[in-house]
């Protein structure tokens, strides 16, 4: 394993890999720093550029975007008080107050170093856990895969913040998208509604691009002209800092760094939850375990270290899930999955054994992206601050044109562009009506696999009780039921608390 990793690390220093990694990381840093532009959107923008590249080059660029974006988001969080991305919200709580107290350099570099250290600690888990997990998944039969995918869907539906029912319906709706077109076993046409190009089914990448890009862009467009955040940009901030001092501030709190990294990794491994939950949860945990929780929010280093170490470790967790099981850990890895399938590569348990150079190349890119981020920010953090003032009226049409190019290039057909447009409308409406997007996308990605494994299992043995009596399958299905039950209980508890708070408020009034 380590030999392969060492070889991949040496190979990654070739110009053909270093250039996409450098460009990807740079674009990621800028995309992450731009308020209103998420990492998902940045990776969607980068996707069409990877079509003309080798699979590893494309994946390296995307990993660069992912790592760069997670770190880049803290720049505006610390210096402007505006989170560059959802997974940097908690960084703002202490980063911005510290900057306002006259220590912008300390706030920024605490975040950057915590990101890099959290990310590199996450790399240890990524490299060492992916192989054994994939080996475990290799022992799975169709019953276990079916149960695993059901578990992923139910967990995502249950873990979203809005209504559990809407989460489940959103996941089911995603699966509905996959039943349009020929059936996957015998190729018999079904539910094509008389549309010829629908016979091949609905490709998931334009759906994913449309849903996420439009939901995010239109969400920003709704508020255009009513928020004016970038004007708060501070000119002439002093970012000079002693790096040794900052590093000591982090490593002198080893438990904080380690616990935040573990939280990030665990949240990353869970499908489709993402860095924003990791960022908030790690901050919350740091506050709970702190000897001085009352100081959180006033600009203390613990708040910045916890939130930033967790969101970079979250990237490693997401990569573990996609590389070992073929299940995207979040929207960014869902786009990566799309990029892999375009090149005819199927992520999953066989991915590491069948595509070892590619898998270890991804590990190497993830590791190298961290020092690269460090160098990029040391040299150009001021330039990044200038770029974030690019008006959205220029940015949004450019992003949407790149979405069209990405969708069109998938099959050189306008059909995929129309799918993109329809998905965009659907994604925006879903957000407006309170339906979470993550379960929908996971349904679109896993729907086919759920059907194929269901049919395979019934073709092998028509006894349906095997889904419950086979130990791993039964355990996974039991966990699905449990995750829904826990989510239901949590939603009820939250509702009760909110009702009590409202009653108390009206009594006070």
């Amino acid at each position: 394993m380590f030999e392969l990793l060492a070889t991949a690390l040496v190979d990654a220093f070739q110009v053909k890999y270093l250039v996409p990694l450098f460009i990807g990381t740079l674009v990621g840093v800028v995309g992450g720093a731009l308020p209103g532009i998420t990492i998902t959107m940045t990776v969607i923008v980068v996707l069409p550029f990877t079509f003309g590249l080798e699979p590893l080059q494309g994946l390296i660029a995307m990993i660069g975007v992912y790592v760069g974006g997670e770190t880049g988001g803290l720049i505006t969080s610390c210096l402007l008080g505006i989170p560059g991305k959802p997974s940097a919200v908690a960084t703002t709580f202490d980063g911005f107050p510290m900057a306002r107290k006259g220590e912008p350099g300390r706030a920024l570099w605490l975040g950057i170093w915590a990101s890099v250290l959290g990310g590199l600690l996450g790399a240890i888990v990524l490299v060492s856990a992916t192989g054994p997990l994939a080996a475990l998944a290799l022992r799975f039969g169709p019953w276990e895969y079916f149960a695993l995918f059901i578990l992923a869907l139910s967990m995502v539906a249950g873990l979203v913040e809005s209504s559990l029912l809407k989460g489940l319906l959103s996941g089911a709706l995603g699966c509905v998208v996959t039943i349009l077109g020929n059936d996957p076993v015998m190729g018999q046409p079904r539910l094509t509604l008389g549309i010829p190009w629908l016979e091949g089914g609905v490709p998931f990448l334009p759906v994913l691009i449309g849903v996420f890009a439009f939901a995010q862009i239109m969400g920003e467009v709704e508020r255009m002209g009513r928020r004016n955040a970038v004007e708060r940009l501070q000119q002439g901030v002093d970012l000079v800092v002693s790096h040794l001092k900052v590093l000591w501030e982090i490593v002198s709190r080893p438990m904080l760094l380690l616990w935040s990294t573990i939280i990030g990794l665990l949240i990353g491994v869970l499908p489709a939850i993402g860095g924003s939950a990791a960022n908030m949860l790690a901050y919350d945990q740091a506050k709970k375990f702190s000897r001085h929780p009352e100081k959180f929010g006033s600009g203390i280093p613990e708040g910045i270290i916890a939130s930033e170490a967790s969101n970079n470790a979250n990237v490693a967790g997401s990569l573990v899930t996609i590389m070992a099981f073929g299940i995207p850990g979040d929207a960014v890895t869902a786009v990566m999955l799309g990029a892999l399938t375009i090149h005819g590569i199927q992520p999953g348990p066989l991915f590491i054994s069948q595509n070892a150079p590619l898998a270890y190349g991804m590990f190497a890119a993830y590791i190298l992206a961290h020092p690269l981020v460090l160098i990029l920010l040391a040299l150009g953090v001021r330039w990044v601050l200038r770029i974030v003032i690019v008006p959205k009226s220029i940015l949004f049409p450019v992003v949407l044109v790149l979405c069209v190019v990405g969708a069109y290039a998938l099959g050189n057909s306008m059909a995929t562009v129309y799918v993109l447009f329809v998905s965009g409308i659907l994604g925006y409406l879903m957000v407006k009506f309170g339906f979470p997007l993550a379960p929908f996308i996971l349904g679109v990605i896993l729907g086919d696999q759920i059907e194929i494994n269901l049919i395979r299992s019934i073709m092998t043995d028509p006894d349906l009780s095997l889904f419950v009596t086979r130990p791993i399958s039964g355990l996974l299905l039991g966990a699905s039921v449990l995750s829904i039950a826990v989510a239901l209980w949590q939603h009820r508890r939250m509702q009760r608390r909110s009702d009590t708070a409202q009653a108390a408020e009206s009594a006070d009034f």
Partner: protein
Amino acid sequence: MLAASLFLFALTLGLKDNPLVPIGPGYYPRLVLGVTAVLALAVFAVDLFAPKHVEPRTEKLNYPLVLGMFAVFGLYCGALPYLGFRLSTLLYVAATNALLDVPKSLKGWLRVAAVALVTTALVYFVFERYLTVLLPRGRWTDF
């Protein structure tokens, strides 16, 4: 959603089973559509009977602008096969840029034109020339 899933469910009843496969092509779609219909009904019932929490609206949202953005994008998608990538993208970027930041002077219109021209040219050259990604050609314009 309820109506759509019931409509599709009805369509699956017409699918013929294959003797080679123990479950036909309609088995899984019926399962998914059945679950979707039940969940849609449950969401509808919850929305109907649950006590309403009226949250005070603090921010006025610009829906006409969103509608305008969708309309322009729809026109762009419609125009692509007829005008081709270069011309329709030029028009789309200009229209969207002007929609999001209405030009109030000649300088503003020049900015719109420059942004549209640079974006179209850059995207075209990068994708067609360097990444060999073929972009849509126009039936009317032939380029």
